[in-house]
């Protein structure tokens, strides 16, 4: 029945020019806002929320979902071209996207991001349509102990997958975890490592750190190289990878899509976690882990698929339970409620037309993001032809704006500046910056869930091995840690 309604709604939307207009408008605004550093998908939606008050419910839904879906892709544009993630979901895209752009493959990076976003978006939508109740159940069986062990697994993957020195990766990752502890303790609301200063009580935000450590540090590196030292970007060649190279990205994209959907469906997880876990996993699974961080297309494809798939995933708890999966769906839910549309457990029975409307809006938004993205791709890469002194000045400016805008706090600008210097020093010392960001994402979640699990179990650690998913994650982590040792032992034993 939902399928019938889906096609009916789709056909009726397609026959209405105003729906086309709204969707194209939403997608264009979404890409631009997403690409602006500091304007997250959440903020883009919150800003446009009042605009939607005057629309019909179906129009408002289409418009806002178009903004949501396209802003996720928009975030990757600034990540790839200027090394600053436009949205938290694009936080790992620049690890490989920016190096690709520096090698004259900006078009390829953008097209890989766009195509992966499209496929990931469809994976998320397909799982939402077909398996929403199942995904909701699976996400519900993923509670504090599983969360804690999943983040442990993510950190283990990351450390052991760092190209070059494992210990450098672990060291930097541990610093990231420590940074995540600054500010109010998540369980007791007591300040930690804040020296009772106002500046540190709010904690160290992910976005200023990332903007500083990647964006500003890159500006500093180019400054220090002097006018002659700045490497020229080779002319932008083909916009697309060869069909063969694209075909090889299927597996990372598919894995990213499934992980993204699932993580998106877990309330309060969010796309930053989805991309962090996906990236670490792809690096681990790749036959060329050393290529990651130096312009490996899979390092762009998998996270971009994951963050777009998490859109579909984040609709699962909203539509099955009536609770927002993340801040973005919270804004969306607020908008729907204002229009008298109440997502929740009664939705499928009471208002299937509304359900179909959401599916069609997501579908429409994905397709239009692809089209608009393709049309403007060549224009986006034009940014790189801006004279370099001017470009770096603009980037430095955007770093400041982006760091400020995320919480309207000047403290975040100082944090960004400090991490700009830290990032530059790390470059000089050849320490990988990626583990720091991933440690900062995963550390607080690991700590919160670990401690909550122990509150729930009355201090018994056995819970982690009594629950099957948690146990599996522990065994996987152990396998990753022990595999080099075992492999070495095996080789020695074989002689």
């Amino acid at each position, binding site marked *: 029945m939902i399928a019938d309604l889906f096609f009916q709604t789709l056909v009726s939307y397609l026959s209405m020019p105003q729906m086309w207009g709204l969707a194209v408008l939403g997608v264009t605004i979404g890409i631009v806002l997403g690409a602006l550093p500091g304007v997250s998908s*959440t*903020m883009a*939606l*919150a800003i446009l*929320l*009042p*605009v939607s*008050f*005057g629309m019909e419910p179906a129009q408002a839904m289409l418009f806002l979902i178009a903004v949501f879906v396209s802003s996720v892709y928009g975030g990757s544009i600034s990540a790839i071209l200027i090394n600053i993630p436009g949205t938290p979901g694009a936080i790992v895209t620049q690890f490989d996207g920016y190096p690709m752009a520096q090698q004259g493959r900006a078009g390829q990076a953008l097209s890989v991001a766009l195509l992966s976003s499209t496929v990931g978006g469809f994976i998320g939508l397909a799982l939402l349509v077909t398996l929403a109740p199942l995904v909701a159940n699976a996400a*519900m*069986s993923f*509670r*504090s102990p599983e969360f804690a062990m999943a983040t442990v697994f993510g950190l283990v993957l990351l450390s052991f997958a760092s190209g070059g020195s494992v210990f450098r990766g672990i060291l930097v990752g541990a610093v990231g975890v420590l940074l995540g502890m600054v*500010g*109010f*303790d*998540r*369980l*007791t*609301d007591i*300040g930690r490592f804040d020296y*009772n*200063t*106002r500046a540190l*009580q*709010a*904690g160290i935000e992910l976005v200023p750190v990332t903007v500083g450590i990647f964006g500003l540090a890159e500006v500093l590196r180019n400054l220090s190289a002097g006018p002659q030292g700045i490497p020229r970007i080779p002319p932008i060649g083909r916009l697309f990878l060869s069909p063969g190279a694209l075909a090889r990205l299927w597996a990372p994209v598919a894995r990213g899509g499934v992980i993204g959907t699932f993580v998106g469906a877990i*309330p*309060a997880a969010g796309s930053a976690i989805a991309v962090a876990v996906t990236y670490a996993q792809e690096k681990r699974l790749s036959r060329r882990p050393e290529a990651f961080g130096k312009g490996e297309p899979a390092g762009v494809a998998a996270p971009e698929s994951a963050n777009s798939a998490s859109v579909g995933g984040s609709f699962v*708890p909203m539509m099955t*339970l*009536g*609770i*927002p*999966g993340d*801040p*973005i769906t*919270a*804004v969306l839910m*607020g908008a729907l*409620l*204002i*229009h*008298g549309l*109440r997502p*929740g*457990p*009664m939705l499928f029975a009471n208002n299937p037309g509304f359900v179909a409307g959401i599916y069609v809006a997501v579908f429409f938004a994905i397709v239009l993001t692809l089209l608009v993205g393709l049309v403007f791709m060549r224009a986006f890469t034009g940014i790189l032809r801006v004279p370099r002194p001017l470009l770096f000045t603009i980037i430095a400016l955007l770093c400041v704006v982006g760091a400020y805008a995320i*919480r*309207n*706090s000047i403290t975040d600008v100082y944090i960004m500046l400090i991490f700009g210097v830290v990032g530059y020093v790390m470059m000089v010392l050849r320490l990988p910056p990626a583990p720091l960001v991933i440690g900062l994402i995963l550390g607080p979640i690991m700590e*919160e869930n670990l401690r*909550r699990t122990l*509150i*729930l179990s009355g201090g018994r650690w056995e819970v982690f091995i009594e629950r099957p998913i948690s146990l599996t994650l522990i065994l996987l982590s152990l396998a990753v840690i022990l595999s080099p040792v075992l492999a070495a032992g095996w080789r020695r034993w074989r002689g």
Partner: protein
Amino acid sequence: MKRRHFITSLAGTAAMVGALGMGLATTPAAAFPDQPITMVVAWPAGGGHDTVTRLVTEFLEQELPSTVVVTNVPGAAGANGVRQVEEAAADGYTLGVLGLHATAQSYMNENATALDRLEPLAVINIEPAALAVRADTGIESFEDFLAYARENPGGIINGNDSPGGFSFLNAAFIENTFDIQLTKVPYQGYAPTVAALVSGEVMAATLPVPMLADLHDAGTVRILGVAATDRHFRVPEVPTFEEMGHDYVITDYVMVFGPVGIPDDRRAILEEALMRAMSGEAFHERGRNMGLMLQPGGADDAAALMATMDDLIYPIMQDAGLVTVRAR
């Protein structure tokens, strides 16, 4: 809407230019407000406070000649946003919204704003506490709940905020008032708490009604009572605790406030505009759709509500050892 802003500001600019040209711009306090008003929300975009504020702002702009810009300044359990308003110039151009979190933080955090540094302007809505359990616990009524808790001290696993949050204070209030002991498990906000209740990680939750109403209708959870003087319109069949004979009324709220010292005439203009903005049927309909218990009230109502809840939660916080600064 964007265009309307543009036109208003264009018209404003034109008027200013015209006035200057004619040499008439001599009275500085001509018309308040003649520049954009900032409304600070101490929580992230998309949260409960944010959505309510954007709704009110939408209507407030129709009552004022200038635009109203919502600015999110999250961090430190709401303390940062409140402080930003406290420290702003008291010219009426910087306002904010706050809830019970400001009261709690004022006793917990040296850097948080003291309540007497705030000037309440208007109440938007109240959010009464409620108590819900999973349907499969077999707990049918509040009496069952109390009996269960007395038989098994700490046996009720309750999902709530971290200390200082409203649902934590509500849980602590139940413990104090009815002399029982709960295992209070902290979550970061309401949505994760609901998820924990649905997944069975916790068996009870001290959340407000709107987040639980649908799950209550679906039969997954059972709301045992509402801690307000009136029943909640979303679940009219659920009695209030007062009806059950218990003195248990505790409510969170969202109110508009400003820094201390806004000139009286400006404060009056703002208060009146807020009250007009919240009087229309369209506003009430949207608010109801969002599950909000709208209770528009002026500055006096706001101050009274804040004082009542302050008196109510102070002893709870003291018992829980949360009062570390500005003890009364």
